[in-house]
């Protein structure tokens, strides 16, 4: 088996998520049922979006395993591959490799209350997690669920329809915030994620896990807030990214000390990361 060879996929649907059109969600379907079965993923894993002749990029899986047979990725337009991808259209073919990475530690998270904190477009794998949890067959496996999600402006929020749907439910507390807005009717929070976390997040009770995904600066300022709320380093999960090429632990470049983001991560506990040089 050649682990570098992608599965053939077709773009079924493309949804522009943000008003600046820099983020789009791509829905893929597999060309063959064998590939579809082989792409057996859990929340928090990622895949390599592979465009022959252009290149490959690692992107977190935005859909929940419960949404199979399709798989979704939300992609920010920034480099060569993402720019090419943004110009593709439904019906186009390309490749996907994966799933890769450890994903969220479901075993440890079960029966626990969850505090999910996301900022910007790093929210994608958290969407996968929330979507999975909210399925009727899964909801009872977890305690309370609090979601704090921030974007720069209302127009930069991802998954708006879903956020609205989550808002209406009683089994999940959603705290949406934006850095700033001139919309006088804005009904949610304004301010950075760490501030909202300080005021809205439940205190640690020994039975809650915090899951944090976001840009480095958000992570930096959220860490002390969580500590003040009483969360231990073992109770904080973080999903990281680093430049990578192979995704299967061989090309070397995504290392943080001896840990590889692609294989040992991308999800780490803060306690694990504290033992590394923190090069991410």
């Amino acid at each position, binding site marked *: *088996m*050649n*682990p*570098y*060879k*992608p599965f*053939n996929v*077709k773009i079924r649907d493309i949804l522009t998520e943000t008003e600046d059109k820099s983020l789009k969600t791509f829905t893929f379907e597999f*060309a063959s049922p064998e590939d579809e079965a082989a792409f057996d993923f859990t929340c928090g894993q990622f895949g390599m979006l592979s*465009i*022959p*002749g*252009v*290149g*490959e*990029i690692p992107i977190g899986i935005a859909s929940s395993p419960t949404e199979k047979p399709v798989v979704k990725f939300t992609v920010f337009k*920034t*480099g060569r591959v*993402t720019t*090419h991808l943004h110009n*593709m*259209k439904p019906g*186009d*073919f*390309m*490749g996907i490799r994966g799933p890769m990475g450890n994903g969220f530690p479901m075993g440890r998270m079960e029966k626990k209350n969850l505090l999910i904190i996301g900022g910007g477009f790093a929210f994608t794998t958290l969407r996968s997690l929330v979507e999975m949890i909210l399925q009727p067959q899964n909801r009872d496996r977890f305690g309370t669920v609090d979601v704090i999600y921030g974007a720069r402006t209302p127009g930069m929020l991802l998954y708006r329809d879903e956020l609205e749907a989550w808002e209406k439910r009683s089994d999940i507390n959603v705290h949406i915030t934006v850095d700033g807005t001139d919309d006088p009717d804005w009904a949610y929070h304004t301010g950075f994620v760490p501030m909202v976390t300080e005021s809205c997040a439940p205190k640690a009770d020994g039975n809650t896990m915090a899951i944090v995904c976001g840009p*480095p600066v958000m992570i930096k300022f959220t860490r002390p807030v969580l500590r003040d709320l009483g969360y231990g380093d073992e109770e904080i999960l973080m999903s990281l*990214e*680093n*430049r990578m*090429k*192979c995704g*299967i*632990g*061989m*090309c*070397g*470049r995504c*290392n*943080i*000390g*001896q840990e590889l983001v692609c*294989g040992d991560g991308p999800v780490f506990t803060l306690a694990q990361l504290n*033992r*590394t*040089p923190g*090069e*991410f």
Partner: protein
Amino acid sequence: MNMIRVTKQAVATALAKASKSYAIAGPVKAGAGHEFRCLGQGQVPDLEYTHTRLSPKSLLFPQAEPMFHFKLPETTGEPGDTPPAFLEAESFKEAPLAVVGLRPWDARALDLLKLNFDSPDYTDPFFIKRYNAMVRVGLADIHPDPENFSLAAGSGPFDEASVDILLADAGDAFIGKVITGKGRDFAGAAGFEPGSPDDAKAFAALKAAAEKEADILPACDRINDADTLDLYHADFWEAAAFSCINCGACTFACPTCWCFDIQDEVNQGKGVRLRLWDSCMTDLYSAHASGHNPREKGFQRFRNRFMHKLKYFPDKYGAGIMCVGCGRCITQCPGGIDIREVMAAMNAAAATVQQEVSP
């Protein structure tokens, strides 16, 4: 049959005989030095060589390797219009490759590389097929280079652990030991003569002399027990790295460096995805698409390279350091960086911290 013997004049005939069942590779003159190459019919390796500039890792892990081919739609030449055909790279012949003249430490390096390319989760098919098909006819080094510290790095001029046969230059003949079954098969195919008890004695004497000559410095005994972060935050890194120009000479010459890049190349609708050697010394290596780079500065990349070899790797695999002491990086570094001195500095830093901790 444990000891073998082949006179120097008979080497060519023996290899010609062996080439009926084996492809042969070995050191040959290339440019101003020597390199390992697959040999053509009748070509004989230069067993008088001292070292090759590039390591023999390219026999398992070539600098550029096509991983698969694809075709782009002819009409537009743009990806996306039709399902891309991901074609397997042409499968290479799996005839056993006998590498004749492999130095013992370079052989050990191949085993260290395997730790990366054959993990519990994934196997790299390109590397592992070649690895399994390789017979290693080692050549002990009776006069190791002054920069060679393989004995200190867990191998040595007569290390038998990673070769199938180990030959040594005894003047007009090579005498040697058959170490594995693979080696016995090759010795049979090449028609090596059995050696005498005197040969065994001579072999042992050569070994003793070479190991005495070999530099046993540097010590790195304290690095193992040191805390990763103490070493990482030690204050010598910036000064030690000052002369480093962050080129890739050391990583390309290194027999144990395995990092690679993946690149696509397309021409007239035909494409190939390639794996290429890469170097952790370049800033592009770790730069995110956003522009953020966790190892933005040259000394951080320098530190990562040595921490990887001397701390991260030993901690992760428990197989010693990721260095076999060949000395290539020392002789080839344009900035005069010497890994032995970096090891010593790390060891000293470890000692300082340990002293501070224990009263």
